């Protein structure tokens, strides 16, 4: 910023190291975009570590990508923030490995970092009433030629296209759309599944019945638990799979039992009705 103030001053009280890195990134955005990205990547790594220390302490030593993934899965990092952090991580890694960063790209990530910082402060400092000011792009050095401006515009256009493509890819990969209110849709499916379950209990499944599916799934789960990425020993894997199988079978048996009980009551009611009819009471 031309007057020497920073977009990230509000971070000082919450996390001085993060604030310092943000200021450095801001300083380098025009003169050395690679360094700007480098600083931003460190900045989000510190943020992620602090978030992990609060939510998932055993993850603090993990690499940044794993940490972000785990935080997102845990619900500690909402998707828009995770996207912003991943974008900085990707571009930061590219810069570290010698891929030159154009200044407009660095500016975009700096803007992302500003957006993330507001969210970060509100989440790290309980009850913080921080309202960061709107992001003011640091001024470009004087004497920018028209050719440079034109190149910057083209880079901006390219960044826009990349951003759009990323959004589309993400949208295509998700099971549920972001704007779909998954709770409502899930509730609907749950109701339908329950109804279909009742039909299946009453009618039975012709070839692959639920007991068989449960058995196959338990065997597969046992193999998954033994897989090196989960690392359970054979005995623990078997115990865990057997426990799940027993739990599922209990529920399946209970459904069957409820169904048989309901059917027996209906039969009883019918017999009573028949007797009353025979006696001429109805």
């Amino acid at each position, binding site marked *: 910023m031309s007057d020497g103030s920073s977009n990230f001053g509000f971070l000082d009280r919450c996390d001085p190291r993060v604030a310092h890195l943000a200021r450095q990134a801001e300083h380098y955005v025009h003169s050395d975009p690679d360094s700007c990205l480098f600083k931003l990547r460190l900045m989000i790594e510190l943020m992620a570590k602090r978030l992990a220390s609060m939510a998932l302490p055993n993850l603090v030593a993990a690499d940044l990508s794993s940490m972000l993934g785990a935080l997102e899965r845990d619900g500690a990092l909402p998707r828009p923030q995770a996207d912003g952090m991943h974008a900085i991580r990707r571009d930061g*890694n590219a810069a570290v490995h010698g891929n030159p960063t154009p200044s407009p790209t660095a500016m975009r990530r700096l803007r992302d970092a500003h957006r993330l910082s507001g969210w970060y402060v509100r989440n790290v400092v309980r009850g913080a009433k921080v309202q960061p000011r709107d992001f003011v792009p640091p001024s470009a050095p004087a004497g920018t030629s028209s050719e440079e401006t034109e190149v910057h515009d083209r880079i901006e256009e390219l960044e826009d296209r990349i951003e759009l493509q990323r959004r589309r890819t993400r949208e295509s990969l998700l099971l549920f759309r972001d704007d779909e209110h998954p709770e409502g849709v899930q509730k609907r499916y749950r109701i*339908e599944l329950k109804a279909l379950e009742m039909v299946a209990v009453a009618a039975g499944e012709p070839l692959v019945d639920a007991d068989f599916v449960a058995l196959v*799934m338990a065997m597969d789960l046992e193999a998954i638990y033994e897989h090196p990425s989960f690392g359970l020993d054979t005995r623990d894997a078997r115990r865990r799979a057997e426990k799940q199988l027993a739990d599922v079978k209990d529920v399946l048996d209970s459904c069957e039992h409820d169904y048989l009980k309901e059917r027996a009551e209906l039969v009883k009611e019918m017999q009573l009705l028949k007797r009353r009819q025979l006696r001429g009471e109805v």
Partner: protein
Amino acid sequence: MSSAPSENELATLWFLTARAMSVAGGGLSASRQGAGGLYAQAMLGISEEACIQAKSDESMASLTLLDCLARLGHVPKDVGERIMTGVMMIAYSDQTMQPLEVRWASMIASAMSMDVDDFQRCCVNARVMSSMMAQAPDAEVPDVPEAGAGA
């Protein structure tokens, strides 16, 4: 009589089936969210465009799971097996088993008139994929050392 569904029909069918399995499993984890579309594109050959279209299509909202089962009964065997494999992969993605997952898998297999051997084969493939996905290393370059960082 089974006939190969069009790409858009397949996308709709896949997302309905996979969403139901995800819900049957008790919720929508990030890994399930991503695995659904990844499988659609990589294994079922559905384009990015068709994946987006399937989820924005009004008809999908109006289709019930019963409609889904009815349509599954008409897909060719090889397509049905790929759908079953993907659905089981979603079921295995959180490494637990829920009664509704078991029931939904059984209903899908029955709707497609699948025999036990074919079903088991699909499950083995699903298990292998699920393990691979859990193991897949992140495309991450080594973390940047903090000390000495800077320009």
